[in-house]
């Protein structure tokens, strides 16, 4: 089994109005830019800058990350189930790399 860099844990189904607990994890070094290597050269900053979540096209969560966040950032938040749709999780780092995870949610009642 290959392990993707970003993973999301959330229910696939919920009742309308239910509070969903969502957990998201990305494998990332979150290099602060303050360290030096064994030859004394500075190690360039390399961090995830922004994490955002769109639910059926509408942004429901956004977080700006800084060099103070540890490697492999783990983010847990909640949102309310309103309608059946797709949640799109996006991580953008300061090298312009973008990682996306998509999860479908079926809302009943």
């Amino acid at each position, binding site marked *: *089994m*290959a*392990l993707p860099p970003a*993973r999301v*844990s959330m229910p696939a189904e919920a009742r309308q109005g239910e509070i969903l607990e969502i957990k998201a994890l990305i*494998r990332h070094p979150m290099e602060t830019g303050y360290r030096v290597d*064994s030859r004394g050269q500075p190690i360039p900053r390399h961090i995830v800058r922004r994490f955002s979540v769109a639910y059926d096209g509408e942004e429901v969560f956004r977080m700006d990350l800084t060099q103070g966040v540890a*490697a*492999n950032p*783990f983010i847990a938040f909640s949102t309310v189930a309103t309608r059946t749709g797709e949640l799109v999780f996006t991580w953008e780092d300061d090298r312009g790399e973008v990682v996306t995870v998509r999860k479908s949610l079926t809302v009943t009642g």
Partner: protein
Amino acid sequence: MLTRRHFLAGAAGLSAAAGGLPMPAIGQARPKVVIVGGGAGGASVLRRLVERGNDALDIILVEPQATYTSCFYSNLFLGGFQPLDVLRHDYGAIAKLPGVTLARDAARAVDLAQRRVTLAGGSVLSYDRLVLSPGIDLDYGSVPGWSREAEERMPHAWKAGRQTEILKRQLDAVPDGGLILVIAPPDPYRCPPGPYERVSMMAHALTATGRSRARIVILDPKDRFSKQPLFQQGWEKHYPGMIEWMPPAIHAGIQTVDPSSMTVETGFETYRNADLVNVIPRQTAGRIAIEAGLAGDHLYCPIDPLTMQSRADPAVFVLGDAAIAGDMPKSAFAANSQAQRVAAIIGHELLGGTDGEAAYLNRCWSLIAANDSVFVGGAYRPGPDKIEQVASDISTLEDSAATRRANYEDSAGWYAGLTLDMFG
């Protein structure tokens, strides 16, 4: 100062009828010491006692295995730094020592009142002093879905031998891009930095053989672990992006493991078709010590920090991984250090002479990559309730490469010295 031990030793000649701790009368057969377990605790006690008394004691070592495979240093076999042979030692030299008899059998029961040990083969050994150094037993029920039957597919390799070879074989078969899961144990357990050194050695073996796209996930029931900053710095340096450590706040607990489909389900995510699952379960004192009643309500055996005598029976000494040694970790170094004390007390009680001072030491090295070894160490003294740490020393994040290389050479010297101390 009148301690219980001094009182017992002084009163020993009078106390036989009162059920105390009699010293064998002069003219009687040699005092009998039975040692259960031929590892870093038991073998070290044995050799110290022979040095002290030559053949004045009748010493029986109860050990079912003909060949000892050391669990300590076995991660280096996994990493490809040592051949399996280096870990193997036989009891041939021990069996030839004066006054020593080797019982190639497992201890099945201890009768504290009658001072007898019954072996699996049925023979019964009486003793004046009993040394219990049985190591750990694994709690097979502590990881849902895992079992003794599953240990071939999902090895623990936390008792060295066949399991060590199975783990190595499985590691060799992990493909590039494959997934390894390591389920770490809850405290207290044998070798606190061991799981993390093991992960380092897996990463080294994978990287060295062109499999650096493989991933290792550690599912830990603990919020932190031994030498954590040193390991995490080393992992990012040598194996960037390869190792993910997940504390309970992230993985939210192991729900179940399924050895047939190599699936591990956590509260956060489910891993299917993993290429290797190393389950290091919860551990307890060796069953013989628990069944003898020496652990009380605990998983491990309470001891007198001054003497290593069992709190349940002063004729019994418990040392090594099976004992509650206060601030000391469960390590081969610690067991060997405690053994010096056990031998001094037994020698004092049965042969006379000084009992010395209680001073314990520990040092644990972990290899992160070739020539990059870190250590943690401590000095310990008996406190009123437990063995207490009085000094400590640990590698730093700023160590030079030369320091880390010197640590590795120290660890190799320690291994050679300890196994010589145990086996001759």
